């Protein structure tokens, strides 16, 4: 796959919806340790709605539909952040029916920036922002074939990098010690999303 179009976006969303449904219990539990325990619901409901949405062929409008789907079904932080990310991608992709895969890293970076602005968050605070940032950087110069694997590796590495460091954003920041011991639920959710988005080789 060297280009992205609306059909491929939909296929990816359907894979993520399946992956998110499978990971829902794990993510609820992770969020339950440090927050209100709804992250699995947020992610699974959000991607289910996005996967079911009618996606127009204009990629910008397609991303906008994803954003709206998330806003409708979820009001938790992660849902709003994901909706914000899709909205940023929508702005860049507007007017294109296909995009080179090489355009994806820029979309990820723009999503990251918009989400930082929305949540008034900084990098290094142990949140989903760090995962996005790592991914954006890892795939920046990657060619299409290796981009998926690099993204997964970066998302996984982010969890490693933040072991022992406390969360400084979201509800988890109230638990300095416990949040240092545990994975940030949002970073974990991001890993599960990327794992599901990348079509397996077999």
């Amino acid at each position, binding site marked *: 796959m060297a280009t992205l179009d609306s059909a491929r976006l939909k296929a990816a969303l359907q894979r993520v919806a399946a992956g998110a449904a499978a990971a829902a219990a794990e993510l609820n539990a992770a969020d339950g340790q440090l927050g209100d325990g709804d992250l699995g619901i947020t992610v699974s409901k959000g991607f289910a709605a996005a996967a079911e949405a009618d996606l127009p062929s204009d990629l910008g409008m397609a991303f906008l539909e994803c954003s709206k789907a998330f806003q409708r079904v979820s009001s938790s932080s992660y849902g709003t952040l994901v*909706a914000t990310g899709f909205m940023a991608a929508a702005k860049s992709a507007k007017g294109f029916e296909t995009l080179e895969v090489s355009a994806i890293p820029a979309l990820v970076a723009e999503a990251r920036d918009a989400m930082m602005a929305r949540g008034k968050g900084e990098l290094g605070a142990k949140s989903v922002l760090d995962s996005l940032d790592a991914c954006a950087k890892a795939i920046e110069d990657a060619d299409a074939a290796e981009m998926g694997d690099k993204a997964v590796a970066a998302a996984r590495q982010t969890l490693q990098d933040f072991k022992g460091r406390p969360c400084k954003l979201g509800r988890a920041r109230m638990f300095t010690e416990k949040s240092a011991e545990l994975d940030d639920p949002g970073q974990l959710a991001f890993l599960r999303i990327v794992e599901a988005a990348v079509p397996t080789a077999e």
Partner: protein
Amino acid sequence: MKKILNNPADYVDEMLDGFVAAHPQFYAQPERRVIARPEGATSGKVGIVSGGGSGHLPVFTGYVGPGFLDACAVGDVFASPSAEQMASAIRHADGGAGVLRLYGNYGGDVMNFDMAGEMVDMENDIRTATVLLADDIVSAGKDEAEKRRGVAGMIYAFKIAGACADTKADLDEVTRVAQKAADACRSIGMALTPCIVPQAGKANFELGENEMEMGMGIHGEPGIWRDALRPADQIVDEMIDRILADHPFSKGDRLSVLVNSLGATPLEELYIMYRKVKQRFDAIGAEIVMPLVGRYATSMEMTGATITTIALDDELERYLKAPAACAYWRVG
């Protein structure tokens, strides 16, 4: 889970049905999870909207009413409403003079209200402004006061901003006055027992048989210390000391005070607390105006109490005393 409910998933919607049915003179529900004034927005008046998670009645939506709020977006228990619901509340509050978003400083609410503001700006050309309530002195230091959470002090801001909007002041002026009211509030809480979020089905924290937690937040956010329950006067003394350290009062100052139950703590005990609060400000020589003692901002069946002070100048006092009415608080 000792709660009187049907399906936990219906808790909020059934609650709102009963709420609107009980007080049709004050509240209408034009769209699911959006409460607005039955008579609609007042043309030419700045609209004021609030919103946030359920489980805090009368906060938020109980303060919709003449002289208070114009509309409210209602989330699940302890969860933000969606940006769509907030945008809808803004539209219902809009009387053509712009809308002030006046709500508690919680991450999810802030993100969604910001997004809602962008939505109504794009789609409806409604001008909006924001004032965040951040009165809980325990939730961040004085140097990071803008990071503090909003708790019971918000009801003073609702009252004062509502009274200002009623004068047909413009959006900038209502925003200035609301911000001034928000800045004048200081709150601190303490808790004895938790509450149960219906969909979670279990207590949101645990406290030992004879333990209290000073400074705990209204969703069970960790406080300053946890220890054996102290006598009421000692608890109040510490709460007042902490408030005074953050915002000193002196002889001749005027203020209002709210002694608020988080839900289960009975009125009897609030009055025992208020007695001590009054003694403290009498000793300073500061005058308490229009004290409030009761359940104004709760966490369902949580046991515990909060104390809020608001320093008054002539302007704030005038707006505080202006006529206003909702099902839980009537002035004038």
